[in-house]
């Protein structure tokens, strides 16, 4: 099973990035092999629709689970038909979030925002 997490740096000790669509990297963590792969988020520099493209990257990398602090509705519309489970990440590193997920400490992300579309957000 593979877990995807938006991360600020290419390290397991990196913080989870506050943005899903425009995170610089994604960590893809394989729970069985304990292997970490960091991929560049090519959606980060998009003119628009970064969330859609980032979600496509998550799907193409065959993640089963996404841990993220928040998510826009367009990205959710890509991830849901791909049967990717979305959990709300907690404060802390990517590694801490992986452990929290494995120990059943994370809850499903139930707030999907309608997107910022260049208008900030908070």
């Amino acid at each position: 099973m593979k877990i995807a997490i938006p991360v600020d740096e290419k390290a397991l000790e990196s913080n989870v990035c506050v943005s899903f669509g425009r995170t610089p990297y994604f960590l893809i963590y394989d729970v069985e092999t304990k292997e970490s792969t960091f991929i560049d988020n090519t959606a980060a520099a998009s003119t628009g629709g970064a969330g859609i493209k980032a979600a496509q990257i998550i799907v193409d990398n065959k993640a089963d689970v996404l841990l993220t602090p928040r998510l826009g509705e367009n990205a959710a519309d890509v991830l849901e038909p791909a049967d990717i489970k979305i959990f709300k990440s907690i404060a802390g590193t990517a590694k801490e979030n992986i452990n929290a997920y494995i120990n059943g400490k994370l809850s499903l992300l139930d707030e999907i925002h309608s997107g910022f579309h260049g208008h900030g957000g908070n």
Partner: protein
Amino acid sequence: MKIAVLSGKGGAGKTLVSVNLAAVAKTSAYIDCDVEEPNGHLFFKPVGIQEEKISVRIPKVDVKLCNGCRKCVEFCNFNALAYIKNNLIIFDDVCHSCGGCILVCPEKALTEEPKVIGKVQRGVSDKIMVSTGILNTGEATGIPIINKLLSEEKPQRNQLTFIDCPPGSACIVMESIKDADYCVLVAEPTLFGVHNLNMIYELVNLFNKPFGVILNKCLKEKNLAENFCIEKNIKIIGRIPFDNELGTLNSNAEIASNKNEKYRELFSSLLDSVIKEVPHETTTNT
């Protein structure tokens, strides 16, 4: 003669200036291109309104023809397409209707279908033709609506047309000024106002448009926007004072120049200055 009124930010006085210039011109056309928040019609209260829906074309996939090559997904600059589990997903509200995905599809699996994004209203207020563009909330861009508003405008030799532009200096402003004969830049006297004036100053220069500045909300203190104009050798068309009575009339959606003689004189003199500038600029630039 088309005169575009623009400013780098909202609330600087574009609508105040364009509405009142159109009002003192008497026989004129007023076109509200601020399609995200059009408010000129609140002043003119036009009658005999005719409405026309504006559509853009968005892609539609024939699932039987799509082979999942993803050329369209990779092509789209706005990421309006995704390919998930053998299914092409199209995000209408992100699509900018460029038609590129249809061109790059080797299987001809994509066609276009119309989608309504807003409307154009046309009416009359005294002898002023009032046109308003209205973009539905959440749509990607109002450019198709502005395009419609301005392309339908039939130029009559001596008729003055005032184009009330959207705020800022983005694509929708460029679309609004591109056929204008003259640009009126409205500026506030603050440092913030100067920053915003500079944005549109660069824009009108880029478009090689003749232009001048109306200084709005002028106080007795030094006017930073005025200093900017002097420094850059920009024509100052005139000044509108910071005036409670004018502000109140305007806030109540009254056309100040129709309500009070002193404002009629103020805007008439501004209009005279603008008209004097236009042919002058046209001859020097051609």
